[in-house]
């Protein structure tokens, strides 16, 4: 994962904000290296991360895949069909409400929505703020995205061992991160 951002898309309202969202949907945008992880693998994670049979009850919180090109459209549609056709799967023969929609303008959410878990890990967050001069830099940072994942319990101890020195933390920050990650015991 190269970077992650949260924001609003899918609607017509110009410059939406959290408190004036209009017809947009809350979304996660991921920049990834396709030589490391494929779109099909991301789709598999997406389908396992939500209940696609739940009916959409608001534009703000609907489940959807916003496809950026025809290839993504084909892969997304194939994966959507597959989950309702898999006889041993949880969603066999169920109606899938998750939509597939062409991607449109993506508006970044306000700063306090990004790297949310990291922003609530005071010591590590203080170091990130010292490293990056302005919010757009930590919002777009690979290190901040990885750290946000680790403090949320994603990633393993062996992955952290491999890349902790590349994440820009001081010795004290690294120690704090180890302490947080060990709580998850992976």
């Amino acid at each position, binding site marked *: 994962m*190269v*970077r992650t951002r949260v924001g609003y*898309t*899918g609607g017509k309202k110009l410059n939406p904000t959290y408190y004036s969202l209009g017809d947009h*949907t*809350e*979304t*996660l*945008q*991921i*920049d*990834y*290296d*396709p*030589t490391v992880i494929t*779109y099909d693998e*991301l789709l598999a994670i*997406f389908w396992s*991360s*939500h*209940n696609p049979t*739940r009916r*959409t009850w608001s534009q703000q*919180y*609907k*489940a*959807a*895949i*916003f496809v*950026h090109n025809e290839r*993504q459209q084909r892969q997304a549609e194939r994966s959507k069909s597959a989950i309702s056709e898999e006889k041993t799967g949880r969603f066999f023969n169920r109606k899938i409400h*998750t939509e597939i929609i062409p*991607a449109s303008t*993506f508006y970044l959410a306000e700063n306090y929505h990004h790297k949310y878990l990291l922003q609530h890990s005071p010591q590590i967050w203080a*170091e990130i703020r*010292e*490293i*990056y*001069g302005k919010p757009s*830099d930590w919002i*777009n*940072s*690979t*290190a901040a995205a*990885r750290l946000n994942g680790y403090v949320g319990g994603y990633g393993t101890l062996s992955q952290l061992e491999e*890349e902790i*020195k*590349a*994440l*820009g933390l001081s010795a004290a920050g690294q120690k704090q991160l180890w302490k947080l990650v060990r709580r998850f015991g992976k």
Partner: protein
Amino acid sequence: MLNTDQHTYTAAIPTIDLAAPTKVETATFALG
């Protein structure tokens, strides 16, 4: 994209940022 030319950082940029690939693909999801 992180702008490494105009930074005014007080600490070093993490090496993982400097090593980020320039050719990436984008995926967008809403989880409901």
